[in-house]
């Protein structure tokens, strides 16, 4: 049936350990040489409420879930109610029947009922360990390599006590034991090379944190917010080792202004947030733009507006990232499409910020931020730090350094406090070349021209679109929709050109070129208003677009895209 491509959804009440089990399973997949994609679904509350975690493992390079799941591991009734429909015909549901027995209606799937919790409680004295037991059942069903699984369990708990490791290993054995009479699934083959290649399994937020570290970012200020907090948390752990500072600020306004201060003082700095906090950073980003201050901002988008659905994904901050804030401003907005790009884009964001002396906004979304993918170990040798026109030994005879001197490319030399002969002012008021406030009209025009010129100059150095395929039908997407789009297109045996936009501001000219011979373009995005579609229309003049949009907070599945394209095209 399905060769080396399997999706397992683990569902239960928060506290049932669905997430922990999923983590182990995804690690296992990586270790046998699979690629991984995951999707968390949990409510914005701390305990209780249905939580589920879908993990897909595949020998093929994947970036997102498939339409359907092969295994439903259900710790509670809700899992059955909510996810049974998703189960592939011929798949299997493993139901923990401890709390209650349940009649499961579908005839086309296999049903395995085990009172996992009861067994765990009675035989292991610890109910919560039931989740690791379930891994034993899975191992049996899919003939997983139990040695690798044991090692994975061991490693997963290695920051905990030896006791916990032992308990979990025991639970795993119990699971195997209880399923010794269970027949393995037919038609499924889950076989990697059993040798973990030199890869990493990590989520977008971790990749962003690593990218920042690798770029030499030494200052992060943030206020906690879902789904960006992980980056602050990751860097709080790792920055101090590197001589850097991570600070949880009193608000997002404080955070962005601290990051600006740090950048001004010469550290590569960053502030991470999501929608509501991104709104609050608007004024600060404007200051950075006006004083031509490098600073990197992450907006990990979630479903808005306002508090919206805090634990659900969306791509509806595009407009704010591109247009937000009063006045005409230079800025850069880039959007990685997968975990690997999240790393490299973050790395490059710090270079871009310093090279063009502008705020750089990394637009991620909840799905990318939380999706665990397998990536090749990052190649650091290829990554060069470019601090742009940072001048640490100016040889000026002037009493003040001409911080905003007019240069061909609009980019002036920059110094930082502590540098002799670098003394100057910086101000969000309009200013002259020394940074002194002036309201003079012709200076104003020259300074605006200078700052705005950068928008043109930087275009050559930003991330061009990635184009795949040819034809006069195009699909356009950005960010996390990459995964489902790729799979949808695989399923449609026609010529389709996929244009994945990676730079949103300034909008690059390549998109218009790619659209030259295109007759119809489907714009796939995770919002209501079609924010990306409008950007494309405005900047390319191409208007025969069809929006494929989703705004229920849940991520796209390939099938949605596939069906809509077929429907419109009559294919």
């Amino acid at each position, binding site marked *: 049936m399905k060769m080396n491509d399997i999706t397992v959804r683990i569902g239960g009440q928060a506290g049932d350990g669905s997430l922990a089990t999923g983590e182990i399973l995804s*690690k296992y997949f*990586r*270790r046998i040489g699979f690629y991984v994609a995951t999707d968390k679904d949990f409510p914005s509350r701390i305990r209780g409420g249905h939580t589920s975690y879908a993990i897909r493992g595949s020998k093929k390079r994947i970036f997102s879930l498939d339409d359907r799941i092969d295994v439903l591991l259900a710790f509670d009734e809700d899992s059955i109610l909510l996810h049974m429909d998703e189960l592939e015909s011929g798949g299997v549901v493993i139901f923990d029947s401890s709390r209650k027995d349940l009649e499961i209606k579908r005839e086309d799937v296999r049903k395995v009922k085990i009172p996992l919790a009861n067994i765990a409680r009675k035989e292991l004295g610890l109910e919560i360990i039931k989740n690791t037991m379930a891994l034993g059942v899975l191992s049996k069903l899919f003939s997983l390599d139990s040695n690798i699984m044991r090692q994975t369990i061991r490693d997963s708990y290695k920051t905990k006590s030896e006791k916990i490791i032992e308990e979990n290993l025991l639970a795993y054995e119990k699971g195997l034991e209880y399923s010794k009479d269970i027949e393995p699934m037919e038609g499924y083959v889950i076989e990697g090379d059993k040798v973990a290649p030199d890869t*990493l*399994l*990590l989520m977008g937020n*971790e990749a962003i944190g*690593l990218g920042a*570290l*690798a*770029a*030499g970012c*030494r*200052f992060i*200020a943030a206020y906690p917010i879902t789904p960006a907090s992980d980056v602050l948390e990751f860097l709080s752990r*790792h920055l*101090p*080792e*590197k*001589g850097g*500072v991570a*600070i949880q600020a*009193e*608000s997002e*306004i*404080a955070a962005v*202004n*601290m990051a*600006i*201060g*740090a*950048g*001004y*003082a*010469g*550290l590569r*700095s960053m502030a991470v947030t999501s929608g509501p906090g991104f709104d609050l950073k608007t004024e*600060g980003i*404007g*200051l950075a733009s006006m004083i031509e201050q490098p600073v990197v901002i992450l907006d990990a988008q979630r479903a808005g507006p306002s508090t919206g659905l805090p634990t659900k994904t969306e791509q509806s901050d595009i407009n704010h990232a591109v247009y937000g804030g009063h006045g005409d401003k230079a800025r850069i907005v880039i959007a990685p499409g997968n975990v690997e790009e999240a790393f490299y884009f973050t790395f490059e964001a710090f270079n871009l910020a310093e090279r063009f002396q502008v705020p750089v906004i990394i637009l991620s979304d909840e799905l990318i931020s939380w999706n665990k993918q397998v990536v090749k*170990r*990052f190649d*650091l040798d290829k990554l060069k*730090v470019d601090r742009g026109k940072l001048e*640490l030994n100016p040889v000026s005879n002037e*009493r003040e350094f001409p911080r905003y001197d007019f240069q061909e490319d609009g980019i002036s030399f920059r110094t*930082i*406090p*502590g540098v*002799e002969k*670098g*003394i*100057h*002012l*910086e*101000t*969000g*008021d309009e200013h002259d070349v020394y940074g*002194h*406030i002036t309201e003079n009209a012709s200076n104003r025009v020259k300074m605006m021209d200078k700052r705005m010129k950068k928008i043109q100059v930087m275009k050559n150095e930003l991330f061009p679109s990635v184009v795949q395929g040819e034809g006069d039908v195009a699909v356009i997407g950005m960010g996390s929709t990459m995964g489902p789009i790729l799979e949808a297109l695989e399923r449609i045996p026609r010529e389709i050109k996929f244009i994945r936009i990676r730079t949103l501001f300034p909008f690059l000219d390549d998109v218009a070129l790619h659209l030259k011979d295109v007759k119809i373009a489907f714009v796939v995005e995770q919002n209501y208003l079609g924010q990306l579609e409008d950007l494309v229309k405005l900047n390319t003049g191409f208007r025969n677009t069809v929006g494929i949009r989703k705004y229920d907070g849940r991520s796209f599945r390939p099938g949605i895209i596939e069906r809509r394209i077929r429907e419109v095209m009559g294919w």
Partner: protein
Amino acid sequence: MVNISLYDRETPTWCPGCGDYGVLTALKRAAANLGLDPAKTVLVTGIGCSSKINSYFYSYGIHTIHGRAAAVATGIKLSNPELEVIIAGGDGDAYAIGTEHLVHIARRNLDVAYIVMNNQIYGLTKGQVSPTSEEGFVTITTPYGSYEKPVNGPLLALASGATFIARGFSGDIVQLTQIIEEAIRHRGFALVDVLSPCVTWNKINTYDWYKANSYQLKDHDPGDRNRAFQILQDDKFALGIIYKKEEKTFEEKVYRKYVHLPLKQLEVDRSIETIYEEFR
């Protein structure tokens, strides 16, 4: 000692007679007394008449946005603790839109001095009520008198954990110089609230009024926190150093376990391989 003209910059555009001239002079004198190197000093301000002070004081200067100077200064000082970072601004900047940052910079005990030029009015925006205006004060936005009790900035800072609190008066540049000097010298967060008349919009809280409504602290032990709380609740303004305590600074704590990365060393340790284990 450094000549104070070292710190001259632009000629101020404040109204003739504005209290802020006194603050500028005192700041320059204090800087000269301390021998501050303009290249290693950053004067961070918000927005307001008073916040223009870094246009008039020669050193690195960053004139930020209204109310956010303390946050920007936090980033600067943490990034390079070797810099002398001084914050300055108005009562609106510090005690209205900037309240949040004042409270939190104080509890962090960041080693910076914060000079608030308190004229009990909004100067630059032309005479609206300020958080420090007295109740009943008539302004263009309070034509029937203000309905609010004033914010007591120094009290707020003390309650938030500031380790140095003082009040000066632009009319007494000698004392103000001493206070600012002490504040800069103090290791930790120092708030200096300066009674600094706005001669254009505030016709009530004039130099004479401040003289009549303030008094010199005498025989006061700045280590006495309870006394400091009381003094700050006086009807009249106490002048002098009201509170002072040595505590670890934020920078010391943040960098406690780690060697600070000197700013000049721009090539940092960018290796991340050791972290890869987490992801396997």
